[in-house]
């Protein structure tokens, strides 16, 4: 019995050192030497301050910015830590809505979102239906991308708010659209933060 337990104990210790410390530290060293930007979270700095990560959605509500997908992330309620409160784009507690497809409350919440998006984008709403990704929460709550259709839907609003022509804005969106990887994998995407940074650089808001 003891003879059997001894290798188990020893092996657990050795493997913990090898796989739990040596392996992650070695990968950390290699990663930071080879791909330092990605290894530190693809952070974006502006004027010496971190403004976010290229890979993590952040909230945009102003009309002059493109808006990301809805986020269902939460945080503990300050009043009662056992409960959670909605805290969109919380990059320290990712998650989706986990709403059931047959939930009345869920379908009503989507209806509210559709009405809100239509009210924000009256011109586009007159021309066609709202793309589904604009009114559904992403799985992580931190989806940095929207579909090209969702970007196109917002073009008239952003153009108006910035006082630029829709054609010029559309050209920027097209330029910032990432097609499927190798022309086949995944879906075409538009990174909202990158697009909004490009907007600020190219068409600053006149105040």
């Amino acid at each position: 019995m003891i003879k059997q337990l001894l290798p188990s104990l020893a092996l657990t210790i050795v493997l913990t050192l090898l796989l739990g410390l040596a392996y992650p530290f070695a990968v950390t060293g290699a990663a930071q030497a080879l791909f330092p930007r990605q290894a530190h979270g693809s952070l974006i700095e502006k004027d010496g301050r971190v403004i976010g990560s290229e890979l993590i959605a952040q909230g945009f509500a102003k009309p002059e910015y493109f808006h990301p997908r809805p986020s269902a992330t939460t945080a503990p309620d300050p009043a009662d830590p056992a409960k959670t409160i909605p805290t969109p784009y919380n990059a320290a507690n990712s998650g989706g809505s986990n709403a059931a497809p047959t939930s009345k409350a869920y379908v009503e919440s989507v209806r509210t979102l559709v009405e809100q998006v239509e009210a924000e984008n009256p011109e586009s709403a007159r021309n066609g239906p709202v793309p589904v990704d604009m009114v559904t929460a992403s799985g992580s709550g931190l989806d940095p991308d929207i579909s090209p259709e969702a970007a196109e839907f917002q073009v008239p609003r952003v153009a108006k708010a910035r006082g630029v022509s829709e054609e010029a804005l559309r050209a920027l969106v097209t330029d910032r659209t990432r097609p499927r990887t190798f022309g086949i994998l995944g879906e075409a995407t538009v990174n909202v933060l990158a697009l909004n940074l490009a907007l600020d650089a190219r068409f600053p808001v006149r105040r």
Partner: protein
Amino acid sequence: MTAAGILQILLFCAAVTAGAIPLGAYMARVYSGERTWLSPLLRPVERAIYKICFIRPETEQHWTAYAFALLAFNLVGLLVLYAVMRVQAFLPFDPAGQSAVAPDLAWNTAVSFATNTNWQNYAGESTLSYLTQMVGMTVHNFTSAATGMAVLVALIRGFTRRQARTVGNFYVDAVRSIIHILLPASALMALFLVWQGVPQNLDAYTAATTLEGATQVIAQGPVASQEAIKMLGTNGGGFFNANSAHPFENPTAFSNFVEMAAILLIPAGLVFSFGRMVADTRQGRALFLAMGILLVAGIAVCYQAEAVGNPALSRLGLDVTAGDNAPGGNMEGKEVRFGIANSALWATATTAASNGSVNSMLDSYTPIGGMVPMVNMMLGEVVFGGTGSGLHGMIVFVILAVFIAGLMVGRTPEYLGKKIEAREVKLAVLCILIFPLAILSLGGLSMVLPAGLAGMSAPGPHGLSEVLYAFTSAAANNGSAFAGLSGNTPYYNSTLGVAMLIGRFLVIVPTLAIAGSLAAKKIVPPSAGTFPTHGGLFVGLLIAVILVVGGLTFFPVLALGPIVEHLLLAAGTLF
């Protein structure tokens, strides 16, 4: 469904097959103790480990000693993991200042990682310190995968040895799995993932000031090193709460493709290893074909259901058509970069294998789309399945299939030259029955106890689906969830932990008993009356046995959950 989506699915199947064949050959050499091209580098490491750990690699074990060593090793690991979580606040590498994990949650999580389930009742980035993620989660991702692989190798030896008392040495099989297969593959994959954008650091969580002036705290950590083994070892426990839907775990369509392939690569490769080790590659091909057919059928159903989307949303006048510029379909809980095809493909692959990671939130799938992962697990996760555990589960079904074939023609059944007799069939049936017993009894209990009912977030039949999914996932050691269920309660933490232990070790021990019993038998040469187990007829019979056993057991409860939900949703009923 779009042409681009279907093309990606075909490409995925081709990539897994193309990778599994050479990997299978490599793994067969590793387990047979032959030289490989990595031997000069890795053999010395392997030998050093034996030396330090009092392991005598040349000593073979009887199946009971093999099982005892396995249980002892897993018990020690489980206790260490529990302890680390309880005291993490006093240990280094904790920049986010995580406090001790609550006892019931620590129990659930320790069992979960020791059994290769990796169910997440915790949210990684708000519960676990970096040290716990590394010495706890990452280590168990390796060891629990290696445990499954060892059991499989012992079972294969049961077929290849004649009149032998022993089935191998557990420690040797486990160490070889880690040193020669899992560790080099993980290191390579981790660097690939960092290149794609997965973080790998020990930095504090970053406070960013967003363009609109809000503060956003961005969780960081040694993600890539854990992500790699999470996929390769069919573990599935995410560094972050959102698992592989999180852009830091799975940043691009390319990383997604590689992660998905990594889920199935080792389980599929082991099927080819099996063929080589029993010196009849046709046997491996037949099992691969049976698994492949079941996998593709699952993908097709799931993809179709999700592409059509939620009729309740279509009625709101949304644009759910898919095209080159829009993912369309049911996008609730899904990421734009993956779209519908890659989400459905992932959901199917991850539950076919016992991975349990998610790149989209299964609770928000349409009823039929969400039923596919559930059915995959209910079939016992034998469609490629977990590293090792999938194929040893499949071989149990093979034993049942040849037994049924034997009954039909009135001959003693045999497989690979071994006579399958009453003892093996009884043990095989035990392996198969223990699983629905755990799911249906604990699930049924939760439907009558207030503590069980309190966990459901969804009203109507979807609530039943949430609970059913949880116990299925736990007993199958999968770990994916209909995550709307409030599982982090003393009731669910403890009962799900029990289901995981039953689903893991009460299957492993009878499987090792089968291995021991088979190893002791003679090998009889095939005769004219031998039922060939490499042809289309056998593949068909095997699939039928799997579907009938799984289907008959679980159809009643599926009818009350996802099936009735689907019919009501189509009729416009909401809850």
